[in-house]
């Protein structure tokens, strides 16, 4: 390659990449609506990382159960962080997903995925299909401490013979 071609190509490429970089930076900046109150980085990034893809949004998200953020709930220290925080964009096979965490008085009240890539509608659909599953494959929480039972509507009468009634009757 001759010098002229090389230098022009380098110049053009650098400009193109630079413009792309700028556009990306603006995009990222527009997604970052960080509140003024600093938030514990562990809670912030930790939660963002727990929702790496749409399939993991469910209760089964393994990291979510053990997330440090989930433990900050009970006693909110005075002046604890509040507000809505956008986590870093996590790249998934379905495209980038960004998680927004709403924190009130130190505890997380809401986690929202901002960027589910359903622009084409297709990825998300395929990501979260209900598929046949064996009974032995159904999620069973490690702790095995069931506090509530969800079943089709109990009547007052039905309740009396329900698992829920048994649990409620148990002294704990």
């Amino acid at each position, binding site marked *: 390659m*001759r010098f002229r071609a090389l230098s022009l*190509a380098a110049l053009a*490429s650098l400009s193109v990449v630079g413009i792309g970089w700028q556009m990306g930076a603006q995009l990222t900046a527009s997604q970052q609506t960080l509140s003024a109150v600093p938030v514990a980085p562990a809670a912030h990034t930790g939660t963002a990382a727990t929702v790496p893809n749409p399939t993991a949004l469910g209760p089964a998200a393994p990291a979510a159960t053990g997330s440090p953020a989930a433990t900050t709930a009970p006693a909110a220290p005075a002046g604890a962080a509040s507000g809505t925080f956008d986590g870093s964009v996590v790249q998934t096979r379905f495209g980038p997903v960004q998680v927004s965490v709403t924190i009130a008085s130190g505890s997380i009240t809401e986690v929202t995925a901002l960027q589910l890539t359903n622009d084409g509608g297709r990825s998300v659909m395929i990501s979260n299909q209900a598929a046949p599953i064996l009974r032995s494959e159904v999620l069973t929480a490690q702790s095995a401490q069931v506090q509530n039972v969800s079943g089709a509507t109990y009547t007052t009468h039905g309740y009396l013979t329900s698992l829920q009634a048994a649990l409620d009757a148990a002294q704990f």
Partner: protein
Amino acid sequence: MSLATHPTKRAQRRTSVPRIHPNYRRRMRLADGLQIIAVVSVALVIAIFLADGGAARFGTPADAITSLGVVTGLVGTDLLLMMMLLAARLPSIDRAFGHDSAMALHQSLGKPALYLILGHGVLLTIGYSMVQPASVFAEVWIMLTTLPDMPLAFVGLGLLIAVVVTSLVVVRRRFRYEAWHLVHLLSYLAVLVSIPHQLSVGSLFREGSVQRYYWLALYVGVAGSIVLFRFIVPIVRSLRSQLVVKGVDPVARGVVSIRLSGRELRRLKARSGQFFIWRFWTPKLWWQAHPFSLSAAPTGNALRITVRGLGDASAALSALPKGTRVSFEGPYGLFTDFARTSPRIVLVAAGIGVAPIRSLLETATFAPGQATVILRSSTADDTYLVDELAHLCRVRGAELRIIAGKRSPGANSWLPADAVRARITLGTLVPKLREADVYICGPRRWTDEVVRDARSAGLPTRQIHFERFDW
């Protein structure tokens, strides 16, 4: 004429700037433009990734690996498309680089493209498996079963690996050209089946986005070029030209000159030194196509090629009946006077490489005394078209040198052993070599040696033109 031009040339030599042909400047502008487009196309796909917020996606190891996988896929695909374009016989590419250089570039891009695409698959699988988390093998299964169009993408990757591996094997073991060609066609299938997953997995090329249209336009452009210049143009030209075999003249054992006649051949804009890919429509030969160079300057109604047939084709070619229909792709190549940069010219040929040299000698621009023709052979007998060359040299005022003698085994030279011992080089053979364009045509290894010699004599790349053949 020679008196009139001599002083100006001297003046230029004093400033040590050789006279550069205006064609060369035009050609270089085109070449520069194409190279810039190629480099910028790589930059552009990276920019597309960055504009989508890609730079922010290197925060965690999993993200970084995934992002890197996306980038390698983008760049690798861009290179693949570039390779296909280089092989699409685009007139502008042929004019700027010549068929030989374009194909050399095509070949040299093969491995990088494959590594990038392989990297794409591996990095994304690892990146995804880290997020999942799942083992890499489990992740492959998950990807195959849950991601849209993923089975096709894996098929494409497999085909690509197969094409590159067989290409290496074919080149090494010198398989038949036809077999290699057939396998090569699979690469088009590989590229084709990998398109759906690019559009459906991930959001980079999401529906309605500018980059999706750009990406699709790339594919359409490349596919259109291939269809147009590899199929439509050759078919139209072949039909229009109505080429038939007019006669076959024996030149030497296994070597024949084939005279062809047709109509409206000027519209092909063929030049001396160029080659076509020919197909002779006889029951034995119709299924194979061969690249052969013109051995005489083309006219409005006649073309001539000189051919050394190998094996079966040899007999079939020398027995071509009069009136056999001929179809062709071409003309291709930059082994022409169009590529000239200097006033003098040196034509170096070995074996059947004499064919394009012969046609070049016929029409190249040079004043009497400014051209040297060097024929190289093992013995004085196995040179072809010597009589014609001698005649042309006499008419045009060129010097003809025939250098016969075996190469010394192990010595890296294009000259016979005794010439090497006598320290003879291209520079000692040709007067004012620095002011000449050197055209070399012969077997691959031999050609490379001549090119090396010319370079070591101080000739810049633009003054060295060569065409190599393998079989």
